[in-house]
Structure formats: structure tokens, C-alpha cells
């Protein structure tokens, strides 16, 4: 820019943040927007958690106690959508917003106003999601959503008005994700400090690059799918109606073409967090940088062509199921490779176990377990038995909670001192870790047995022979759910004060983000750092 007079709008660079609500509502600052993403995700975590605890309370005993079947189904649907789209993805986007510019030496995200739009669409989408939950309770509101998060027709064609709110909520969530992904890709390609080439970027940045690609490729397909649903519901098209020549299974293909890559969208950013944490606390450089990048790229491509392993029971040809089975099993190779790289990073390191590292170790153990049950599910004849049972629920909670959510927790503990300038309370955080992890295993481990013994998922009642394991699971769920109050307390306490954090925070930490003071100045790298 040449002279000051031509750019009056830019003179704020010499001051701090804008005052009052303007700072948040109209933000163009990657850190403020990142903070809003994280707070939003935390709120959603509690909403989704509340619905999960209601579900588990109902399942504590056989028979109907608290809920009606319709409300139960509505809660199951809402829980999944809130957690995936409201909690995990926004939290990961919050980390991306905060950390990517710091890590690559950029002054901000490439398109700051669009960045704010990506965030602010989320509260609107979440409101529509909640509306889809409550609309049936108003007169003329129609029936409750009973499809589960997969929204399969023909059931989803029969639900009342709330399904339309849900469809539009998904459109909004999709727009938000696509815009955020565009911003992240452009930031990574165009905003790196001079001298930093792609193979010098922290793995966290790489994971988000791959995640953003996946989102741009698959979210529009989901949007197309739910648009067809909308037209079948209201405008007389026959996409999913066999009588008109369509096929309900078509929706499943469109959904899982999005849905399977989506699981990598959920775990990859957290795996990126691990790549930052493990070298720090093992005090060793990351093992196998290139193979991590290669694995991710392989996951991205293979991940887009294995979707029908969610549909083994629909009646595909032998060739098709064989292909999807082999593809699915092959994809666990790059996923496993990432895990082995992290283990090799720890090998003979001088390790200490601060809370982020505790989470990291727990993630590797428990995620791997979920990966193993995934391979069981990938085997067609076996899945014919497991499909739609509690075993699947156990599988995906073992991959998703450790793989995605715990990774985000680990990242929050790891970077909270950087963000706030204060150390969190290590003792409380460790207590949180243990309650959280034990509660998690107590909740979901018994569900493997339940599933193998034949208990179906998404059903409010069950045979009395399943009672004991369900009781254990429900008790675990209460412990697990309530433990997050401690997380909230720790975070608030850290924001309000604590031992001042140094710029480097952790003894073994490496990377550009640690070169800036804690907390970093309002505008990050106003001077591009030198890359050696």
C-alpha cells in the first residue's frame, strides 16, 4: 500500500481491537474468530452432551421411563448432528483459525471478512437445527425427526416440517464449511512466510489442508442430496421413489459419499494436533514427516471411494461389496501408518506427561482399538451381523471421541497458555483427564458386548438380557458427561488468571507459533518471520 490517506480503513493496525460488540460481531481478526468458533463449539458440546445423557438415562433400564419413542429418536438425530457439525467441526475450525496463521507466519487468514461469515453462519445453522428439534412441539408443527443423522428416505420423506428446517440447517452448515475450507486452502497456499515451502509446514497445517480439500469435494454432494430430498418432499420429484423410477438407496450413496470422508474431516485436524504435541513432550523431532503427509494424501483419495461399507446390507453385487471391503481395509494402512509414526516419535524420547501428552497417549491406544473394530466391520459377512447394532455405536465412538474430541481437548490444553497468556491448572486438568477417559471407556466399552449379543442401535427399549451392560454404560455416561463441567471450570479459570505463560510455554515446543509472546499481539505476524 502506498500512502495512508488512500486506506483510512486500515489505520486500526496501529491500535488494538475494535471496541465493544463490534470486535466480535464484525470481526476480521483470525484470533477473535477462532475464539468465537471455540466458544461456540463448547456451547454445542454441552447441548449435544445433554441430549446424550438423556438418551443414556432412558437406556439405563429396559422399558420406557423418561422419553417417548419419537422424542428418543429425535434426540438421537439431534445429538449426532450437533456433535459432528456443531461441536467437532467448529472446534477444529477454531484451532485452524487460531493456529494456521501463527504457524505459517501470516498476518491473518487470506480472506478475513469471509472468515467471519463462515463463523457467523454457524449460530444461524445451529438455531435452525434446534428449531428442527422443537418445531414439532408447536401446534401444526408436524411429526418429530425419527431418521437418525443419516436421514434415509423413505422415512425422511414422511417427517413433518422439522425435516425442512433440518435440510436448510445442513445447507447452511455446508456453506459455512465450504467457505472456511476455501479460506484455509488459500491461506496455506498464498500466505506462508517467504521461504516456507509446503514440506516445511507443521503437520497440523497439512492435516487442515487435506481436510479442507475433502470438505470442498464432498460437502456439496451432501447439499445436492438433501436438496433432492427437499424436492421429493415438496415438489413431486421421484429421486427416491421407486414407483417413479427412482431409488431410496440413491440417497444412501449420496449421503455416504459425503459421510465417509466426513469421518476423516473429523479426525485429521486432531491428528495434526498430535503431531504438534507428541514431539514437544517426547523432546524429539517428529518421526516420518514425509510418510505422514503421504498417508494423509492417500487417505484423502482412498477415503472418497470406499463409502458403501456403510451399506453392505442393501444388496449390492458381489463385485461391489468385495471392492468396498478391500478398499476399506486398505485405507486402514495409511491410518495405521500415522499412528505408528506417532509411536515412533515417542520411542526413546525423554517423555513427560502433562495433560496434552496424557491425552495423546490415550488417543493412540483407544483410537487404535476403534480402528480394529472398524476392520471387523469392514468384513462383509461379519458386518451382516454387526450392522445397525450397538457394536457400530461402540466402534464409531471409539474412533470419534479419542480420534476427534480428545485431540481437540489436547489441543486446547496445549495452546490455551499461548492464547490466554496463563497456564492452566495442571492438577485439575489431570483429574479431568482421568475422569474423562475412565468415564468414556465405561460408557462405550460395554456397548461392544451389547452389539455382539444382538442389541440394535437407535431403539428406545431393549430385551432384559441386555440390562447389566446398559446400566454400566449409563453410569459411565453420567460420569463422562459431567466431567466436562470440570473442563469448563478449568478453561474459565485459565482465562481469568493463572501463572503467566512464557512465549515458548513448553520446554520442548518448536514452531513459529511459540516465537510470538503469549498471548500474541492482536495482529499476528505484522512482520513476516525469517524461515531458516
Amino acid at each position, binding site marked *: 500500500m502506498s500512502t495512508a490517506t488512500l486506506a483510512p480503513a486500515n489505520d486500526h493496525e496501529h491500535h488494538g481491537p475494535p471496541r465493544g460488540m463490534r470486535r466480535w460481531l464484525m470481526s476480521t481478526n483470525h484470533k477473535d474468530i477462532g475464539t468465537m468458533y471455540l466458544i461456540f463449539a463448547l456451547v454445542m458440546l454441552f447441548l449435544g452432551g445433554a441430549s446424550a445423557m438423556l438418551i443414556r438415562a432412558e437406556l439405563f433400564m429396559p422399558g420406557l421411563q423418561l422419553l417417548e419413542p419419537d422424542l428418543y429418536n429425535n434426540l438421537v438425530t439431534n445429538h449426532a448432528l450437533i456433535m459432528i457439525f456443531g461441536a467437532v467441526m467448529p472446534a477444529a475450525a477454531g484451532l485452524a483459525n487460531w493456529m494456521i496463521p501463527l504457524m505459517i507466519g501470516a498476518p491473518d487468514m487470506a480472506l478475513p471478512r469471509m472468515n467471519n461469515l463462515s463463523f457467523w453462519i454457524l449460530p444461524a445453522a445451529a438455531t435452525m437445527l434446534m428449531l428442527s428439534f422443537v418445531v414439532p412441539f408447536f401446534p401444526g408443527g408436524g411429526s418429530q425427526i425419527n431418521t437418525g443423522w443419516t436421514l434415509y428416505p423413505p422415512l425422511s420423506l414422511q417427517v413433518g416440517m422439522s425435516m425442512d428446517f433440518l435440510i436448510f440447517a445442513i445447507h447452511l452448515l455446508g456453506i459455512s464449511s465450504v467457505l472456511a475450507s476455501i479460506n484455509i486452502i488459500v491461506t496455506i497456499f498464498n500466505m506462508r512466510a517467504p521461504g516456507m515451502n509446503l514440506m516445511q509446514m507443521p503437520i497440523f497445517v497439512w492435516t487442515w489442508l487435506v481436510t479442507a480439500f475433502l470438505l470442498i469435494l464432498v*460437502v456439496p*454432494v451432501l447439499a445436492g442430496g438433501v436438496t433432492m430430498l427437499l424436492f421429493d418432499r415438496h415438489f413431486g420429484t421421484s429421486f427416491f421413489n421407486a414407483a417413479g423410477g*427412482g431409488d431410496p438407496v440413491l440417497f444412501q450413496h449420496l449421503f455416504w459419499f459425503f459421510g465417509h470422508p466426513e469421518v476423516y474431516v473429523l479426525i485429521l485436524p486432531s491428528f495434526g494436533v498430535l503431531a504438534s504435541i507428541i514431539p514437544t513432550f517426547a523432546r524429539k523431532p517428529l518421526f516420518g514427516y514425509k510418510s505422514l503427509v503421504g498417508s494423509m494424501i492417500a487417505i484423502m483419495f482412498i477415503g472418497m471411494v470406499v463409502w458403501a461399507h456403510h451399506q453392505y446390507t442393501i444388496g449390492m453385487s458381489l463385485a461391489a461389496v468385495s471392492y468396498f471391503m478391500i478398499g476399506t481395509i486398505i485405507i486402514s494402512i495409511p491410518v495405521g501408518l500415522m499412528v505408528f509414526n506417532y509411536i515412533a516419535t515417542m520411542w526413546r524420547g525423554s517423555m513427560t506427561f502433562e495433560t496434552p501428552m496424557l491425552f495423546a497417549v490415550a488417543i493412540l491406544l483407544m483410537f487404535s482399538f476403534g480402528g480394529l473394530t472398524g476392520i471387523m466391520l469392514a468384513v462383509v459377512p461379519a458386518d451382516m451381523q454387526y450392522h445397525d447394532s450397538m457394536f457400530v455405536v461402540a466402534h464409531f465412538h471409539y474412533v470419534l471421541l479419542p480420534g476427534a474430541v480428545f485431540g481437540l481437548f489436547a489441543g486446547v490444553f496445549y495452546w490455551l497458555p499461548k492464547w490466554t497468556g496463563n497456564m492452566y491448572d495442571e492438577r485439575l486438568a489431570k483429574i479431568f483427564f482421568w475422569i474423562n477417559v475412565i468415564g468414556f471407556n465405561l460408557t462405550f466399552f460395554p456397548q461392544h458386548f451389547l452389539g455382539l449379543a444382538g442389541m440394535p442401535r437407535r431403539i428406545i427399549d431393549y430385551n432384559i438380557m441386555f440390562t447389566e451392560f446398559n446400566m454400566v454404560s449409563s453410569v459411565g455416561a453420567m460420569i463422562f458427561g459431567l466431567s466436562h463441567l470440570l473442563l469448563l471450570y478449568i478453561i474459565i479459570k485459565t482465562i481469568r488468571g493463572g501463572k503467566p505463560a512464557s512465549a515458548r510455554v513448553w520446554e520442548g515446543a518448536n514452531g513459529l507459533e511459540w516465537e510470538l509472546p503469549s498471548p500474541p499481539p492482536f495482529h499476528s505476524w505484522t512482520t513476516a518471520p525469517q524461515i531458516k
Partner: protein
Amino acid sequence: MTTAEHGHHDYYIPDASPWPIIAMLSVFLLLCGTALAINDVGFGIWLVVIGLIMLSVMFFGWFGDVVKENLTDCYNAQVDRSFRQGMLWFIASEVFFFISFFGALFYIRNIALPWLGGVGYLGATNELLYNQFTAQWPSAGPDNVGGGFTPMGAWGIPAMNTLILLTSGATVTWAHWGLKINSHRQLVAGLGATIALGLLFVILQAWEYSHAYHELNLTLNSGVYGSTFYMLTGFHGFHVTMGAIMLMAIMVRAMKGHFSPHNHFAFEAVAWYWHFVDVVWLGLFVFVYWL
């Protein structure tokens, strides 16, 4: 501003802006209103109207700010690259939106319909439910949903529309050449021709729809053929309309002399978008109309 000593400082970071939040409110009203309106809740339509008005104001305001910033030289080459890359990835996401509909078309023609017709391992559907049905394309399914119809031929209006869109792709490129050699007249004439061709396309498409509805009994409700036909051509037509509006905005800016041979991202973005719409049409022509 003292930028000389800073490496990155010349990357323009806009000041706090009201437009994103207005955009959020407008799409929220628009979509809530639509959800209510399609369920016959009366006030829904008002939310739609308010949402649309806010959305237009937002586009004017937001892009107006961008234009202002551009004219006051806020943007350096790096910012320009961000815009370009952003537009390309946006178009990539649009491509995948269309892929979902093309995918549906291929799936229905090659997998779902043959099943209903009794072919393959799921042929039992035919035996048990739809005994008289033979699979063929076009089809309105075993129940002939929507009643008998005549499919849309490829060599009438659609072929003409193909020519029109291809020509418009050429005229927009000609306009770009004009811009590059700093010929204002060629730029404006090229844009004008492109817009005219785009509008002609939309008018012919509308005429074709009306013909289909009134004479061919081919409607949105004509089974899967009607569904895929109208959804694919409809979304495409919507994109052409958007593209034409964008071209008009660009033409106004071109007439005001906003573009120079070296600084015309907005022009190029719209031209890319136009080519994208063009390519989608070729897919439509081959797979929806012709084959």
C-alpha cells in the same frame, strides 16, 4: 502508513465489517421463511421477501466495499492471488454440487432402472412388485408417475442453446482480449454481447420449459426423467442467470473504467464462472438431452 520496513504489512486486512453478519441474518430469514412457506405457514413468504432484500443490500454493500478498496489501491498482488484462488476453489465446490445431480442421473439410468426392470440380483423387485415394467430411458417409473410424456429432443432449442452458450464463451474471451490491449470499446462490446447471449439462453430455456409443460406433459413430476431433467437444467439455468447478473455488474464497472490490463480480478472471476456454466451445459446437452 509506514509499511516500508514491514515484510507482510502490505497484505490488506480489512477493518471490522458489518456485511458478514448481515449476510448471516438474511440467509437465516430466507431459509426459515422458505421452510415455513413450503409448509403453508402464511408469514413464511414475508421472511423470504425480507431475507432477499437484505441479501441484495448485503451484496451491494460488501462488493461495494471491495470495489472501493480496490480503487484506492488497498490490494497488492498477493491479495489479488488470494481472490483468484478463492474463486477457483469456489467453482470447484460448485462442480461437485453438479456432480451429485449427474451422479444421480447415472445411477438411476444404469443401476436403479435396470433393477426395477428385473435385471441382475435385485430383479426380484420386478417379479414381486412391478411385473409389467420394462426398463428403458426415458422413464417415469413403474407407476408412470405424472402420466405419459414426450421427452425433450436434443436437436431443437437445446442444440441452439449450445451454440449460444459456446458463442458467449467466445465473446467473453474476446472482451478479455480487449481489456488486455486496453480497448475499452472491445471490452464493453464483448461484455454486452455475452450478456445478450446469456439472456437469450435463459429466455429460450424458459420457452422450452413452457413447451414441455403445455405440449409434452413433461413436468417436474414426470417420474425420474422429469426430476433429473428439471433439476439439472433448472440449477444450470439458475447459475446462468446468476452469471448474467454478475456480467451486468462487471459491465457497469467496465463502463466506469474500473478495470486496467493489469488489475481486473473481478472481470476474470466472472469470466471463469461463465466458462464453468458453459462446461456444465455441455455435460447437460450430452447426458440429459442427447444420449
